[in-house]
């Protein structure tokens, strides 16, 4: 299992490095200035996985909130990247992804406000913000 995961991740990094190593040096700067779409998508996927892992593994409810923010921002990154990608490939009116990113930020702010309010209410009643001590959802 570990061997398999090692293989997978090294292959994913290999794909990233393949571009960098096989390209000539003078185009590397241009590449950095105008990076390829797949890099953004890979970074978005990594952010998403890190967020999910945080939600599933951390006990502090504040950290879980922060992990949810990571997941949302992974989605925002994908929106922006794909919007830019579409604009560069000729569709100058493809701004829906960027507008959606703004919406997501607004919703995340509202969610954070409500969520932190719930956390405060929870703490006042239970005296804890550790999720493994809160099992009242089953009632």
């Amino acid at each position, binding site marked *: 299992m570990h061997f398999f995961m090692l*293989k*997978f991740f*090294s*292959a994913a990094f*290999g*794909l990233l490095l393949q571009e960098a190593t096989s390209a000539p040096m003078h185009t590397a700067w241009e590449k950095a200035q105008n990076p390829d779409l797949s890099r953004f998508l890979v970074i978005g996927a990594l952010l998403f996985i890190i967020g*999910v892992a945080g*939600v*599933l593994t951390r006990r502090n409810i504040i950290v879980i909130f922060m992990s949810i923010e990571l997941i949302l921002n992974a989605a925002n990154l994908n929106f922006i990247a794909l919007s830019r990608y579409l604009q560069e490939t000729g569709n100058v009116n493809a701004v829906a992804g960027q507008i959606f990113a703004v919406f997501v930020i607004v919703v995340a702010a509202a969610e954070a406000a409500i969520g932190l309010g719930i956390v405060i209410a929870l703490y006042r009643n239970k005296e804890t913000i550790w*999720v*493994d001590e*809160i*099992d*009242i*959802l*089953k*009632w």
Partner: protein
Amino acid sequence: MYRYIWLVPLLPLAGAAINGLLGRKLRFSEKLVSSIAVGSIALAFLITLAAVYSYTFSSNAIWPQAYVTSQDGTFSFTWIPGGAVRLTQGSHERLSIKLQEEAARKRAALPPQQREQPVLVGGGEEQRSSVLNVEWSYQLDALSSIFMLVVTGVGLCIFVFATGYMHGDPGFYRFFAYMGLFMFSMLVLVMGSNFLMMFVGWEGVGLCSYLLIGYYFDRQEAANASRKAFITNRIGDFGFALAIFGVIATFGTTQYGDVFAQASGYPLEPLGQWGLLSWIALGLFIGACGKSAQLPLHVWLPDAMAGPTPVSALIHAATMVTAGLYMVTRTNVIFQHSQTMMMVVALVGAATALFAATIGITQNDIKKVLAYSTVSQLGFMFMACGVGAFAIGIFHVMTHAFFKALMFLGAGSVIHGMHHEQDMRRMGGLRKYMPYTYLTFLAGWLAICGIIPFSGFWSKDEILWNAAATRYIPVGWIVWIVGTIAATCTAFYMTRLVAMTFWGKEKFLDAPHDHTPEHEVHDHDHETPTHHTHIPHESPASMWVPLAVLAVLATVGGFVGISSAFTGGQHVGGRMNIVNFLDPIIWNPTTRFFGTHHVVDSYGKQPEFKEAHVELSVLTTEPLHVELPPPPYGQEGFNLAHMVESAVHSEALTEWVFIIISLLVAGLGITLGWLFYVKNPRLPDIWASRLRPLYQASYNKYWVDEFFGWAITRRTMDAARAVFAFDSKVVDGAVNGSAWLTKLASRITGGVDQYFVDGLVNAVAAFVVRLMSPLFRAAQTGFAQNYALVMVFGLVAAVALFFGADILKAVQSIFAIGF
């Protein structure tokens, strides 16, 4: 005029319809009802007279053409339109498939507008197809002429009489509606030109007879009598209907002319041979027995006297009961084909004549005596038909209609005058009180006794002579002996009736009047002092005038059939002689033609016909003496006339011997009656006690009713009781048992349902729930991260589902690159 004969049945029907439908609602007066009824009958009688005259005697007469029908005339329509009927000559199988195919082929070859018509299929005699078309058409010929004249003529007299007799009856209009309906049915019966029309009339008169016998329906006796008449007639109608089916199956038509023309070609069936025509004749004769009250179906007629007396005169003496005679004479072709059936007819007639005459001797009810007399006289008529003298049978129908209608009406007058007293033992000496009735009754009495020259003598003497001389059946001598004894009895009981009623002591003066409640209905119209002292009175003119007319007819009516012995051995008078008149409709088995023009009459004499030139005149030519032809059926038994002839050595004298015997027995009967009931009134009691068993048998009508009651009614009741018991025990038991079984089964299934099925359901459900609940309970941890984990699993599953293939490909490409 015969073009208008369709009016003859229609007029009485119209009168009956007006009286019956409107009489009650519009409260017709008795005068109006009787004018409508009598007027319609009188008009019908006039049309009949004119039609018969123009058919028979007028200068442009078409006689002796056998059949004049109005088929081509104004009043004729196809009553039952035809379909294909299989004509069977021998085998009776249905139209075969082959013939149906042939018919279809022939139809296809026809032009389109004719394809609906039937086509003739089959080749030879064996396979012919015909069409059964039943016409509603009237027929005027010699036979129907006589019956039309008798029905409308005698009917007119009786209608007039009835207007007096029924005076004051609350059902006056109803009575005349029924009577008119009866006249219609009877005229359809005798005027129809095919068997089905005869059957319609036959059933119609049966219905009217039922209605009129039960006219006083509030009297149990009348209601019972009407039912008895109806049911007894049904037995006869059953035979008649079978015979009609036989006719249709055999000849493919019901039209008289077609049937008889075909039947003429069939072979004769000598004694003991039961061919097709014998069976048809048997069915017809059963029908005739029922309607004409022959043994053993005679039981209804005496009971039918429960009806009003004009009904007894019209229906149960003059017309309806002679329908059997009409039918036998009409179908004489069929009967003459079967010697067996001729013998059956003659013997049944003779037996009935004697049987009923002996009963008539001891009855005390005046109408009962006349009823048994009617049965007896009908027996005489059948006797005549059975020995081959159909014309004489019809002659006796006519004379009997005159004198028996007269005597019934006379009895009605007596009953009316005696305030509805019918028992002769309370009468006597009425000649002083009712002179007209007495005088007219005397004519009827002398006629039925057979005293020359009254009408009954001519017909009865001819019957007996024909029975003695017949060559149709070998037992003519038995018929003659029985008939002669019956004639003696007839003279005796009629003299007894006259003596007890009109002669002797006035017994009603000392006898208490039997004022039975059922007669109240008729008594309220005689609110005179005589009513309370019960002194008889003469009837009104509307009653004795018809009596007088009938008395004249009963006196002179016999001359139309004057015996050939009186006129030089010939039937003189041309068409005015009833034997010549009826000749065209009587089939001759020797020549196989209708009529005896060609060779000889039934007892070997050459008839003389001068009808075209001489009418109503006595011929004086010498009779032609010819060799006797062979007997019709090729065999001859003992012949009384031949024996006498060989003794007296003279043909003319032979008939005179029988005439003198017939007169002697009539005189003997009258003398005995006079001795018993006038000279020495104690004699009847002495002889009754001396011949006690015979007297009892006769008085109790030979216990026929009791026998039928025991043999048929009781058995029917027993069968009904058995069927009822079966019904209540077995059928009801089965139904109740099935209900009990259903209840039991429902209880069992209910138990099974409650304890087994429900238990099973409960057990299984509980088991499953108990089994599964930890699993579902375990899923509900309440920890948010657990739920999130499940969401992630769902996400991974969704991704694997939608992008699994792509991921796999990507992984493969990564490994393909290799490290």
